[in-house]
């Protein structure tokens, strides 16, 4: 986190920038919110919200976290 740019190996100016294995992580926020077994229940309640509601709202953070991570790991390094 602190080091802005770790000694990244001089990445080859790749053509296939989309083919990073990090992209597979993006399937987590696509699949997890679509499994009702996780969230279809009332307890535990958080601030009065049944699990159905707070957990699905929390999945938004899962989506944000994953896309941010993948973006950071796949973005072009070292300027253009």
């Amino acid at each position: 986190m602190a080091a802005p740019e770790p000694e990244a190996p001089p990445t080859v100016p790749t053509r296939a920038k989309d083919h990073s294995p990090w992209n597979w992580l993006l399937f987590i926020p696509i699949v997890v919110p679509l499994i009702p077994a996780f969230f279809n229940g009332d307890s535990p309640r958080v601030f009065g919200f049944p699990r159905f509601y707070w957990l699905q709202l929390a999945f938004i953070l899962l989506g944000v976290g994953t896309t941010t991570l993948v973006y950071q790991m796949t973005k072009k390094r070292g300027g253009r």
Partner: protein
Amino acid sequence: MWRDHLTEIIVFSVLFLLVSVMGFVAARWRAPKDMAHLDEWGLGGRSFGGWITWFLIGGDLYTAYTFVAVPALVFGAGAMGFFAVPYTIVIYPLVFLVLVRLWSVSHRHGFVTPADFVRSRFDSPVLALLVAVTGIVATMPYIALQLVGIEAVLKTMGVTGESALARHLPIIIAFAILAAYTYQSGLRAPALIAFVKDSLIYVVILVAVIWLPQKLGGWGSIFDAAEAKFQATAQNPNDGILLNANNQLQYVTLAFGSALALFLYPHSITGVLASRNRDVIKRNMSALPAYSLILGLIALLGYMAIASGVKPLPGTKEGTVDNNTVVPVLFDQQFPDWFAGVAYAAIGIGALVPAAIMSIAAANLFTRNIYKEYLKRDASPAQEANVSKITSLVVKVGAVACIVFLDPQFSIDLQLIGGVIILQTLPAVALGLYTRWFHRTGLIVGWVAGMGLGMWMLYQVASPTRKHFGGSAFPLSEFGFDTTKTIYVGIVAVAVNLAVAALVTLALRAAKVEEGVDGTEPDDYFADEGDPRITPGPDRDADPAREPVA
């Protein structure tokens, strides 16, 4: 009576006029040297950076209808209405993976619409025409629905009349203003207005979700009140604050299918193509879910309306109620007049941004894939921009006509159909970005099959009040399964579409039918801003000064 709502009406009108002025001024905002080019009018010069894109796409995807209809659904059916949350979570990783490729290939080749891409990729003007027509047909009722959002607000403020004309006059005026500044400023107008719209929405919703629960005894008692209401009304077995065994499949397929549909809609693609580079899009996919949080909270306004005993206003027909008015009525009951006015303005302006982008997207499809393809092959960029501007006017007149002359229910039905039919472009547009395996004729046949099946299924869906087009939840028992589960029509239709496309592709390949030439290269899908290989193309070379011959 409207006199009781005078403060609200004044605040609403002032804010509405303010954004109208902004719409006209937008023509000079980030002004290009030459506005008479479709890239400028229709895509804002393809130059929008992170912030503008965030407001623009946010203002584009989360429409006034969403703000009114989602809580209305939660008010009426409970947990089912919350599908909007997983729906808008799932879409962003999809865009991150798929639409970034569309941006690159469009940037490289100067594509303005998804149909432009399909034409070049599969070498098939017919397939491109299908994609374009699908897009236009799916978008039109969506624009009309924005008017339903404004109408719900106007109705609550008591701005109604006896005759159809008097009732619709405010909407006609609002849309005339919208049409005028969209004509003049193109995509820059909604981009600039989106700042105001989204700021107002954020303020209103944050105030609502902090203040209202305190007045209503906390979140716990809001949910309990909703649960009590759903228990008391036993006539609908599928309502409740949780899902039951029968509607879980519908919930999941509806969320996933809607996400797939949303990013195929021409207006979403227009918003994405207007951004400056790949990084802007990718960063936005992390930032846009902020809107999903707001949407989730807006959905819960439906429960707050239950807890505070809101009675929706009567509908157009005797004895019906218009559930779309629950949120405006809730604001009217709970907020001081001036703040209710601000909230109404947020919804009203919230209708203008998507309506403008949608009409631009539909106009671009017409210009690029019908006018230029079939009517005037050698159209100059200036002529293209001109045709698009005029088409955007026609599209809006059509949307207003839909609302004034037809039952609004008809637009709601059409929008339901719209989601299903736009999904049928998935194999050509979204999968086409990854593979050219499908044969162009296979894609056409698959489209026909998916479209036919989707229409038939929607026709079969009954609701308590109607025999046909009663919703998108198709009972699996109709297929002969021994179950009471339901599934979203669009998912089934697109699965059949894909299967048919694959089978026809195999058959055509065995018969060695001509496949056409791919106009794109694998590298194009990674091109970024400043790519040296960007082909200026005949469009860019054309003399911008050439005037259309009258």
